[in-house]
């Protein structure tokens, strides 16, 4: 009983002592997904399509690494919820300025970069 409580209070650390098979399967899956990104790079798809595919594969890789290698899957639920809320909020907050990059791409006044060297 004491061991059970200690394990829970250590944030699920006992999960590290599980079988090797699961880790090897996750490792293989991440390698396959990484290889898939290289295939996508040579697939001649349009810019945004390529970006979307790269992002989706990257998120899948990162998800496997976070859940199984970093053992977030066996952490306490309130910690995982807090982690997810903070990270997702920050990542979403970073997206606010894309409209300005579109403005520059369309060649709005005073928005053109000079080429060759930083002025």
């Amino acid at each position, binding site marked *: 009983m004491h061991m059970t409580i200690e394990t829970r209070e250590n944030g699920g650390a006992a999960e590290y002592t599980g079988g090797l098979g699961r880790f090897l399967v996750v490792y293989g899956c991440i390698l396959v997904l990484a290889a898939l990104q290289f295939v996508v*790079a040579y697939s001649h798809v349009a810019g945004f399509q390529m970006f979307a595919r790269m992002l989706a594969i990257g998120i899948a890789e*990162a998800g496997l690494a976070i859940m199984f290698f970093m053992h977030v899957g066996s952490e306490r639920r309130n910690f995982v919820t807090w982690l997810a809320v903070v990270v997702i909020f920050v990542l979403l907050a970073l997206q606010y300025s894309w409209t300005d990059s579109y403005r520059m791409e369309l060649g709005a006044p005073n928005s053109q970069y000079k080429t060759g060297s930083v002025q």
Partner: protein
Amino acid sequence: MSQSDAAFDLHAPAVHARSSPFGIPTKKLAMWLFIIADAATFAGCLVAYGFLRNGTPNWPTPFKTPTVVNAGVMTFVLITSSLTILLGVRDAKLARKSQSLRWINITAVLGIIFAILHIREWFGMISEGVTLAHNPWGSALFGSAFFSITGLHLTHVAGGVVALLAVGWRYRGGRYNSDDIEILGLYWHFVDLVWMFVVPFVYLMNVAH
């Protein structure tokens, strides 16, 4: 041990539950906070890179097969190092110190191989005229973005190798325990995780067709 000493013994499970948010050991929570902050830093860099790339009409796509192959090897090395540090943590938790140290050292060697491959590629690009302020293929911002993002990641790898050796040394001497190896593993996995986004956005979306 006096009562006041016991209150500051962070390895005591009963203290974790009272003193640390979420019932997680304090050092582990500190590492998670660092990872969150660092994730925001890398995300900021990658979003800024996307912002520049999207807004720059003559963004170059210069990477040819040798660079892509090199990036592939670096990716394989780093993902494999995530497995080896995981095995190191596993052995530490099973109280197999010598096996754990062996995996930690293998991870450090893989980190060094990654850094060597990366620096070799940097020198290749610099010899072609790409620097922080110049780029022979188009927008100078390409060099700025490439060296900034990959340099930040390489700094993390170098710091991780130092941490692997230092923590491993102290673990060997008995000053650190398996919890410290677990925390070290979290950092190393994070370094690997960041690379999963650096490769597609900085390398693979700039492949020459």
